[in-house]
């Protein structure tokens, strides 16, 4: 690797780091702008610290857990995001969280359908005072499990991009579907093979979207309702954007039958930070990407065994496959003659 390339790579990563720091600063600002019903007590460092009845004031609303730390499920949800040390903000018994009323006053929490999920449900109820702010449903896979699948599938998607099989795609955990959703053009044979491979490995943990067509493994049912709180359809329910700190309502298309949820439109967000900070972050990112592209494209020419000079010395994976396909080997001996001699013995 020559000095020019090393310098370009270092500069690229510095720009990416600056972008991350700037974006984080913008995120911090936007989160600080969120307002929630004020509480009277000071949060202790111990998450299980209990407030007294005098501190929380009006304690005569039923059902109401007067001993809990968080006023509503929305407060607990925010606490999870503020204190998450990794990309997965939820406890490992949570499958997803979404809004029932379009805001933060009434949230649906999906938990795993096992002992851990049951214990988790009780834990949430013990942490939240206003039990009317939370309802529960059961799903098959925790958010952490799906996030792990997302990471593995992303490796394969990036490889296909490197090999020129696909040029764009999107992936994310869709909490209301309890699945990883991949947006990709599924018309090519390689993508279809990749898709089938994913279905074999992950079953109904993964869904592929090709425009408006949704492709999934429907051999195993998910989403068993505990009854009462949710009837299994996505009508009039809203999801919360997870993972990037933006909290808000995402309207689901009305009238879509169960199991055929189409593309979810993402609404614009409110309470954004200073426009200048985001503009600066975007500028740094663009500069960093440009440096990376320039470094990749200005590689030196290479000379083949035949002495030909190639104008772009870097082969991509498709070219490697083409070389393997177009070249062949020939036996040097007269094999056919020997075969016939052997046969006629």
């Amino acid at each position: 690797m020559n000095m020019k390339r090393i310098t370009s790579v270092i500069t690229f990563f510095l720009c990416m780091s600056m972008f991350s720091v700037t974006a984080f600063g913008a995120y911090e600002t936007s989160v600080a702008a969120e307002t929630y019903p004020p509480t009277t007590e000071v949060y202790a460092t111990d998450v299980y610290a209990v407030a007294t009845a005098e501190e929380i004031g009006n304690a005569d609303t039923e059902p109401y857990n007067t001993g809990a730390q968080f006023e509503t499920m929305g407060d607990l949800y925010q606490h999870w995001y503020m204190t998450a040390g990794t990309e997965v903000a939820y406890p490992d018994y949570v499958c997803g969280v979404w809004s029932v009323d379009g805001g933060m006053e009434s949230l649906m929490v999906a938990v795993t359908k096992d002992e851990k999920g049951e214990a988790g449900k009780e834990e949430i109820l013990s942490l939240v005072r206003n039990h009317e702010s939370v309802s529960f449903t059961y799903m098959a896979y925790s958010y952490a499990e799906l996030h792990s699948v997302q990471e593995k599938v992303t490796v394969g998607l990036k490889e296909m991009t490197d090999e020129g099989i696909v040029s764009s795609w999107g992936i994310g955990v869709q909490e209301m579907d309890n699945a990883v959703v991949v947006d990709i053009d599924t018309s090519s044979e390689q993508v279809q093979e990749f898709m089938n491979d994913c279905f074999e490995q992950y079953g109904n943990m993964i869904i592929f979207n090709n425009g408006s067509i949704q492709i999934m493994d429907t051999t195993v049912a998910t989403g068993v309702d505990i009854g009462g709180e949710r009837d299994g359809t996505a009508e009039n329910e809203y999801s919360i954007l997870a993972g990037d700190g933006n909290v808000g309502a995402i309207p689901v298309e009305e009238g879509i039958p169960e199991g055929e949820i189409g593309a979810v439109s993402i609404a614009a967000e409110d309470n954004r930070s200073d426009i200048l900070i985001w503009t600066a972050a975007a500028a740094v990112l663009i500069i960093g990407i440009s440096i990376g592209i320039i470094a990749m494209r200005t590689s030196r020419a290479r000379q083949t065994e035949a002495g030909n000079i190639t104008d772009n010395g870097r082969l991509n994976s498709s070219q490697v496959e083409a070389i393997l396909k177009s070249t062949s080997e020939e036996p040097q001996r007269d094999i056919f003659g020997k075969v016939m001699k052997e046969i006629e013995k």
Partner: protein
Amino acid sequence: MTNEELNEKLSALSQGDKAAFEEIYKEVKTSAFTVIYRITQDRHLSEDILQEFFVRLYRTPPKAPLNNPKAYLMRMVHNLTVDSLRKQPNNADIGDYENALSAKEEEIDERLDLNNAMKKLSLEERRIVVLHINGGLKFREISEITEIPLGTVLWKYRRAILRLKVILNGGK
């Protein structure tokens, strides 16, 4: 030669038609030898295996018509190659699916050299790559032949292609 034509030749071969056998030989020889050589990386051994393959094909031709006669013949070639390698002394590659490339890596020559690049893949990677690219087999068929799970076949194939890309780009 299309699959239908190949089936006709195989059918004629089962009747002892030597002219059909010669046509099959001319059609299949190059791809078969390419698969064998790229797996074994030994020219002399590869020629022996190729000879053995055609002798067996003549003596026990498959019952035509086959769904995919080309794929069938490549499977025969592959299985014979692997069996022959097992009989070789110093068959450390057999079963050693994580053949330590890093242990054998030497300084990479900057010139394009496909055969040298192929030598740097593990046996399993060479099998998967040549069966797919030169043998024309689908990954699912390769998974059945090699008894490696489909997902692993896909992953190893991509890894092998990426390694070849790195090597052919001068190790950069």
